């Protein structure tokens, strides 16, 4: 007879899963509602999703308070790990999602928003990302990662255009390969340490003083490949521009923010202990990877003809920039990572939303992609506010003060400087200069060229009040970022520091 397994519900601490569960329940609820009554308007689903996400956010904030009082919370056989990083990143994930979901409220009809499954999948995806960041167990991370990714592939495909399918297939296939990397890397770690929990692995490795350095490195290589894919590090980045181009601008913007922050948190958990224990190889490789990712993607962005593709490369570059935090590994750097990403969310939200509102259903003759630069030529004449908005987001992306990203940038470079990475700081700074060129290119088209008549009618075609509100929020967040930086810094530092990073 089997011995009864006695586990008290309290020790299980199921509440640690509450935020994710809220999202999952939300998804299920949407599916159920659809069973009861079909054909509800997309605005209904948007709002229901928002409500669930609001609850989700409330739960996370609640954990924030608990964390500040009593430190890291563990649950579900230590599978769940709610520390500062988890809380911060979940806030970014959920809040970011809340800003992006209303982008469905376009004035044009889009096929995917008529399916309640779209919103359900969206919520599943969010739950997946939340699992990813709220655990240091490789299994759970893997499950979260795949849940989110599979949902994401589907969301992309739902856009129902030839390019979207192509994008989804590409993303999917490469994602499957990356999943293989992840699993294999985990396996090696498991083989040499007997554990799949990152802190256990760290302890085990420290105990035998990295005796199996060769295997450790091989494991790291595989995990780096998997996470590098998620973060679109060169050369695992190749999916990014195609997928961004293929998916709707709203989703592309989302992809540039939320999945990446989840990836960053995993990367922080996985690599920082290695960096700190003096694995020189990893330092060197990360250094090179950061520099190459930043620089190469910047250089490729220079030669793009499509704004969305350009933004894709630009977000690769930003991700590379932020990866530097993991290399630097100080509290300041990790704080900078979250600060940067919080500010980046606003700016990128604005930038992609501006593309989204000018979405056209049918390409005009000679147009090869959705958002060629020419489309924006002379925008300041026809729609000055729109032009100013785009310019604002572009300048912020370029790191021109006092707009949002500038503050993230100086804090990040400041972290590099404080940690003695002088060359890295310089490279980061100079990369911003290269990047300025392609952001400027759009400004040049908008402000300094003559309008092209055929494109005129597509501006703001897709705009609705909700979209304009979102853009307004993004703009306010970008312009007045300076006033938010101090409170943000304080909170982030508190959380990051207390999590031991």
């Amino acid at each position, binding site marked *: 007879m089997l011995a009864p397994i006695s586990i008290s519900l309290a020790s299980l601490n199921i509440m640690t899963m509450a935020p994710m569960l809220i999202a999952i329940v939300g998804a299920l609820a949407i599916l159920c509602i659809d069973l009861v009554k079909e054909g509800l308007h997309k605005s209904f689903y948007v709002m229901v999703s928002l409500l669930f996400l609001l609850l989700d956010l409330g739960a996370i904030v609640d954990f924030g308070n608990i964390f500040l009082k009593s430190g890291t919370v563990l649950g579900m056989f230590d599978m769940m790990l709610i520390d500062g990083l988890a809380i911060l990143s979940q806030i970014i994930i959920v809040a970011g999602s809340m800003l992006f979901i209303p982008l469905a409220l376009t004035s044009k009809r889009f096929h995917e928003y008529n399916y309640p499954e779209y919103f359900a999948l969206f919520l599943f995806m969010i739950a997946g990302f939340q699992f990813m960041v709220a655990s240091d167990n*490789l*299994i759970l991370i*893997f*499950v979260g990662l*795949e849940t989110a990714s*599979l949902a994401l*592939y*589907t969301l992309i*495909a739902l856009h129902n255009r*030839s*390019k979207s*399918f*192509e*994008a*989804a*297939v*590409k993303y*999917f*296939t490469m994602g*499957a*390969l990356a*999943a*293989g990397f992840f*699993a*294999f890397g*985990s*396996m090696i770690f*498991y*083989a040499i340490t*007997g*554990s*799949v929990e990152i802190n256990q692995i760290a302890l085990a490795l420290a105990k035998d003083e990295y005796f199996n350095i060769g295997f450790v490195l091989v494991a790291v290589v595989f995990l780096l490949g998997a996470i590098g894919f998620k973060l679109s590090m060169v050369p695992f980045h190749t999916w990014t*521009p*195609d997928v961004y*181009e*293929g998916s709707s601008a709203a989703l592309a913007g989302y992809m540039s923010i939320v999945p990446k922050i989840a990836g960053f948190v995993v990367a922080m958990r996985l690599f920082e202990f290695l960096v700190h224990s003096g694995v020189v190889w990893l330092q060197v490789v990360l250094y090179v990877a950061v520099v190459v990712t930043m620089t190469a993607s910047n250089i490729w962005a220079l*030669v*793009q*003809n499509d704004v969305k*593709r350009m933004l894709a490369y630009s977000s690769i570059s930003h991700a590379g920039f932020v990866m530097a935090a993991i290399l630097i590994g100080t509290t300041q750097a990790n704080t900078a990572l979250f600060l940067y990403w919080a500010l980046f969310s606003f700016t990128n939200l604005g930038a992609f939303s501006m593309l989204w509102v000018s979405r056209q259903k049918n390409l005009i003759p000679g147009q090869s*992609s959705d958002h060629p630069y020419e489309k924006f030529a002379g925008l300041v004449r026809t729609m000055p506010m729109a032009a100013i908005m785009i310019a604002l987001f572009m300048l912020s992306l370029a790191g021109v003060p006092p707009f949002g990203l500038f503050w993230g940038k100086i804090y990040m470079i400041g972290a590099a400087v404080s940690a003695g990475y002088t060359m890295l700081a310089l490279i980061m700074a100079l990369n911003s200069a290269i990047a300025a060129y392609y952001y400027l290119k759009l400004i040049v088209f908008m402000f300094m060229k003559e309008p092209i008549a055929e494109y005129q009618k597509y501006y703001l075609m897709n705009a609705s009040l909700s979209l304009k509100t979102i853009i307004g929020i993004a703009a306010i967040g970008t312009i007045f970022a300076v006033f938010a930086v101090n409170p943000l810094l304080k909170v982030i530092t508190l959380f990051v520091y207390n999590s031991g990073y």
Partner: protein
Amino acid sequence: MEITLTHYLVLSTVLFAIGLIGVMRRKNLLMLFFATEILLNAVNIGMAAISHYRGDYTGQMFAFFIIAIAASEVAVGLGLLIVWYKRTGKIDLDQMTSMRG
């Protein structure tokens, strides 16, 4: 000959390598999916073997999760493949280059 953990791991690695080669070489989307399945199953073998060797169940748990994920991957992947095939009538990778640069 006694079969040790090493053998399992070598097998796992070899399978993984085969999967990798398949991923690189195959132009047929379906075959590509098979290759990715091989990748994951290579890991499964390793996981199970290590789990047995270590005497704890974490590895097996991981393996089960991988199987589940692989299954859902196949579901999504085949779904995409079918839609793609419906739209284009082909499942050849080289046709899939409308975006580049």
